[in-house]
């Protein structure tokens, strides 16, 4: 495949609805868990659709695994034209070698222009393997994909820790790209559309697998290092004294969070040094960072920027952390935290 093929994306034509361009489509990899599509896959379907509209192409989903035949219907509201489905008992547990083999067979000789993944532990493992197998380029965590005035596909992503942005263009087809689902918003639902299901005949050779998963070690979400935790609860000077940690601990246990804190909290020995977050401590990238009694000094916030959601509880409405927070509660942590624990006990169970 030469570079020319890619730049040959035609200008939008009136007949496009019937007769899509010869780009061979935008393909995306659907992730699922316990027989359900992951939310990130719905966001990705919508993203694929909007890129496809921009490039005047079709959208195809790739769904592989075991017990997944019905999942394609979940894409009905997102304008997904086709779903390539492959089921096999061998795929019940994740084996990257099988997955890559199936994906490259499903993609086949009719190469799409783009194959999209939503970033996740699974796709971080799979996307590079697929790119390597197809001998094509991988753009991880792109921030924007567009067509220039000549119809050339441009992909932007951050480099140097977000200090600069690089613009890339594929020279081979397909280009593999991953996007952080947190950056995506679900577009308006479209008219429901029947997704054509295609189940190509593929043979799996059990010998393909060169590695074998022998065990899974589940971490205790409260004990895990703050740098790996999905939920982090941060405490600072506002904690007041070591005894007050008990209430935070109770909350952490019910919500499945790992406790970390500011330098003030480690200096006071309320928490151990390994749990310090900031310039002289750990960098965190949780789904939720619940910040209690921390003002939000630069030395601290530098290391929390990768948090998907920040929720702060602080008595001072002018504390810098308030401006960074997705939800900022102005109030006394010592009153709110026990109340929060009490209400949580009544209504919920943790998802993880």
């Amino acid at each position, binding site marked *: 495949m030469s570079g020319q093929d890619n730049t040959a994306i035609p200008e939008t034509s009136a007949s496009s609805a019937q007769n899509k361009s010869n780009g061979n489509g935008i393909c995306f990899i659907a992730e699922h868990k316990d027989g359900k599509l992951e939310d990130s896959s719905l966001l990705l379907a919508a993203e694929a659709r909007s890129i496809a509209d921009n490039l005047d192409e079709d959208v195809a989903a790739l769904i592989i695994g075991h017990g997944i035949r019905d999942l394609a219907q979940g894409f009905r509201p997102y304008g997904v034209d086709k779903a390539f489905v492959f089921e096999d008992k061998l795929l019940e547990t994740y084996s*990257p070698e099988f997955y890559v083999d199936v994906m490259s067979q499903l993609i086949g000789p009719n190469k799409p222009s783009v194959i999209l993944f939503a970033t996740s532990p699974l796709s*971080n*493992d799979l996307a*590079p393997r697929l*790119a*390597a*197998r197809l001998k*094509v*380029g*991988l*753009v*991880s965590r792109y*921030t924007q994909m567009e067509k220039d005035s000549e119809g050339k596909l441009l992909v932007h992503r951050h*480099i*140097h*820790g*977000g*200090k*600069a*942005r*690089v*613009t*890339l*263009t*594929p*020279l*081979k087809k397909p280009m593999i790209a991953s996007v952080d689902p947190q950056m995506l*918003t679900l*577009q308006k639902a479209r008219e429901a559309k029947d997704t054509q299901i295609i189940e190509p005949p593929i043979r799996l050779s059990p010998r393909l697998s*060169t*590695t*074998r*998963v022998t065990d*899974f*070690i589940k*971490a205790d*979400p409260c004990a895990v*290092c703050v*740098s*790996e935790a*999905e939920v982090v609860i941060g405490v600072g000077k506002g904690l007041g004294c070591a005894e007050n940690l008990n209430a935070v601990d109770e909350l952490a246990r019910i919500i499945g969070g790992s406790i970390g804190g500011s330098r003030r909290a480690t200096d006071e020995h309320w928490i151990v040094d390994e749990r310090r977050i900031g310039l002289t401590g750990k960098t965190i990238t949780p789904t*939720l960072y619940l910040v209690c009694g921390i003002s939000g000094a630069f030395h601290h916030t530098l290391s929390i920027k990768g948090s998907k*959601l920040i929720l702060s509880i602080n008595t001072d*409405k002018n504390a810098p952390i*308030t401006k960074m927070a*997705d*939800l*900022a509660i*102005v*109030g006394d942590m010592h009153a*709110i935290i026990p*109340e*929060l624990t*009490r*209400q*949580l006990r009544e209504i919920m*169970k*943790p*998802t*993880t």
Partner: protein
Amino acid sequence: MRIGVCVKQILDPTIVKFNIVTGQLDNVRYIMDPVDEVAVSEAIKQRDKHGGEVVAISLGPSKAEEVLKTCLKMGADEAIHLCDESFNTLDSYSTSIVIARFLSKNRYDLILCGKESTDEGNGFLGAGIAEELNLPLVTSTTRIDVFTDTNSATVRRRVKGGDREVVETSLPAVFTVDSVLSSPLYPPLRTILAGLKKSITILDAQALGIDLASIEPALASLGISQPKPRLKKTATMDSSLSAQERMKLLMSGGVQQKKSSAIEKPPREAAAEIIQFLIDNRIIVRQ
């Protein structure tokens, strides 16, 4: 045991700045990628345990020899600098092919590289090498136990939220390393001094027997620019809406630009507000 470890020289991301006027990077300081430092430390620990040698490999301009010098001082046995004018603009796919060609000239029991470089973050190289050399690959490893008697290894890999998957593989194999794999190495003075005496082997395309024209690059870079600030989805919105309505609003991007606001309420209501936020964002589910 022969261990190959890939190391990359990068710009220190904590100080580098994009200059809007010149369109270039300012405050440029070259360092060894921290994740590769972890890989080298692990390689040396494995060698010290099982014997053999550590070969550090870097592809880059002349300046990149600095990181190889560091590897030698850390205790690497050999340092290979893949350096050629024509390598300067290689994309990550072509880089993996060139490094794989070098590695194919010798038997390596273990090939280590970072799970993703700190500057570019492609996360590709390990997979590229494994595919080209047809070797097993395990990504994001957090612990490596090698069994030389059976030529195999048991490794742990990082998944979500601190969970680990345990994987068995035969050797030779390629492992990409997570930054928690190995603690920093403090080489004794005599190792450092010995490292200072070792020399770096420089190989260009010709010495490697590589015809770059035969490697088709996968991506072309069209240049760098100032990053656009990311839009952040925020979930602070009208609390009179039902959870479902909020969810819809959130999903539609309707509140994307809304600035977060501070909410001041008595504890009971404040806690309820927090719970609604946690539900809206699927941190917790109602029983």
